[in-house]
């Protein structure tokens, strides 16, 4: 089963504003690409992060708030904050 199909099963309360931003795009394009191969694009279980050729884009609306990117970004370059109260993923089973 594809990840997109799985994410489609989830309930979210979507916020208009993103709770994720990249602090310094240069790091993703240079140091991280060379040394680490941009691991956020693979370890993120909700496929939030993608390299568009110039920068990392963050599809924050997919985020399941696992918080892995807080330690998984080798440069602490992902500014991930808690979604506002009541917003974000809403697990029905857990």
């Amino acid at each position, binding site marked *: *089963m594809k*990840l997109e199909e*799985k*994410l489609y*099963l*989830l309930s979210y*309360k979507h916020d208009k504003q993103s709770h994720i931003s990249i602090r310094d795009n240069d790091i993703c394009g240079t140091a991280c690409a060379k040394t*680490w*191969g941009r*691991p956020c694009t*693979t*370890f993120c*279980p*909700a496929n939030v992060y993608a390299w568009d050729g110039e920068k990392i884009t963050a599809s924050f609306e997919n985020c*399941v*708030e*696992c*918080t*892995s990117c*807080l*330690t*998984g970004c*080798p440069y*602490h370059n992902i500014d991930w904050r*808690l*979604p*506002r*109260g*009541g917003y*974000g*993923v*809403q*697990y*029905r*089973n*857990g």
Partner: protein
Amino acid sequence: MTEEKFDAIVVGAGPAGSAAAYTMAKAGLSVVLIERGEYPGAKNVMGGVMYGRMLADLIPTFAAEAPIERVIMEERLWITTDDSAVILGHKTAAPHGEVPNAFTVLRAKFDRWFASKAEQAGAFLIPATVVEDLIMRDGKVGGVRTGRPDGDLYADAVVLCDGVHSFLAKKAGLQTREIAPHEVALAVKEIITLPPDLIQERFNVGEGEGVTIELYGAVTQEMGGYGFIYTNRDSLSVGVGALISHFMRTKVTPNELLERLKQHPLVQPLLAGGQVAEYLAHAIPEGGYRAMPRLYGHGVLIAGDAAMMVNGLHREGSNLAMTAGRLAGETVVEAKGRNDFSATSLASYRRRLEESFVLKDLKKYQHLPEFVDRHPELLRIYPGLVNLAIHEMLTVDGMPKRDKQRKIWKAVTARRPLWRLITDAYRAWKVIR
């Protein structure tokens, strides 16, 4: 506007937070329990096995009312290769009494129930609310700033149960360094629905009874971690986790890892015909004793995942959280008695934890996280060797058994020389003794 002041504020309505709130409210304190999800459990994920003893310490009659999925009667351990497994296990037919040892839960349901017990005891639950900062007053933590308008709340003590990667632990000065990728695991799981009678048939248990399977070896593709299959009433919790440091290195995606596990030839028949109802992911604080933050400060205590209270080897976490939450609550109740919420007064929290299994177990395994991070290859090599040896012994092909033993020993030492077998065994013994 008059200032809203309470005896205690608890941040996070998971097992630790609801246990702390319940304990304090029951003792007559005014307690606010703040949860960022629309309801308790909306954000919370675990494999699914919970333990009865620590819950009974708080709510002795929980078995009659808590949303329990199945009581665990059998625990299996699968040591896997790509197409085989050596299987160990323990099954009991003994009645489990009023307090079942282990049972499965679905956290969105369980956490809601547990928080409602804290509410019934008198705690005031505020859901859908994020605590953005701590308010310092008179040199101590004296309240919280929430994301709501006019959302400042004050209290004598604040108990942080805000989960893994606690932002508030940093703000309180309890966590002063960044958590490392080898100190956190990432787990993904699915809820796969199946009719209850089919689950009972497939896992050979009765109504209300369940099985756990932990899978080590090939299923984690040479990363430090394990897979699991737990039975719920009308679904299975199927998942896999590994250290984030290993995900970063291997570039295996969590979903690929989970799909591979589900397609393992020994796993597939257990899941056949099931429908995926939900996909979940969460970070698990696996750093253990050496990665814990300071556990208390002036006017503040920390418990549960926020304090790294997970015993990964034994699949325990929510029970440590509940115990720590209860002990934090008891500490605040005592501090209230002498009206002293300084760090000196709250220091008894650490003493209580040290006297309990929580810190004793975490201390015991304090070197394990580093070992798992450094030696993921052992999870490939040894499951392979064990499967090879057993498979050979069970293959009846006319070869005399002594020759078989020689053949096995040769094959084993070809893959792992004797001196390495000895050093591996010594190291492994050292970290779990």
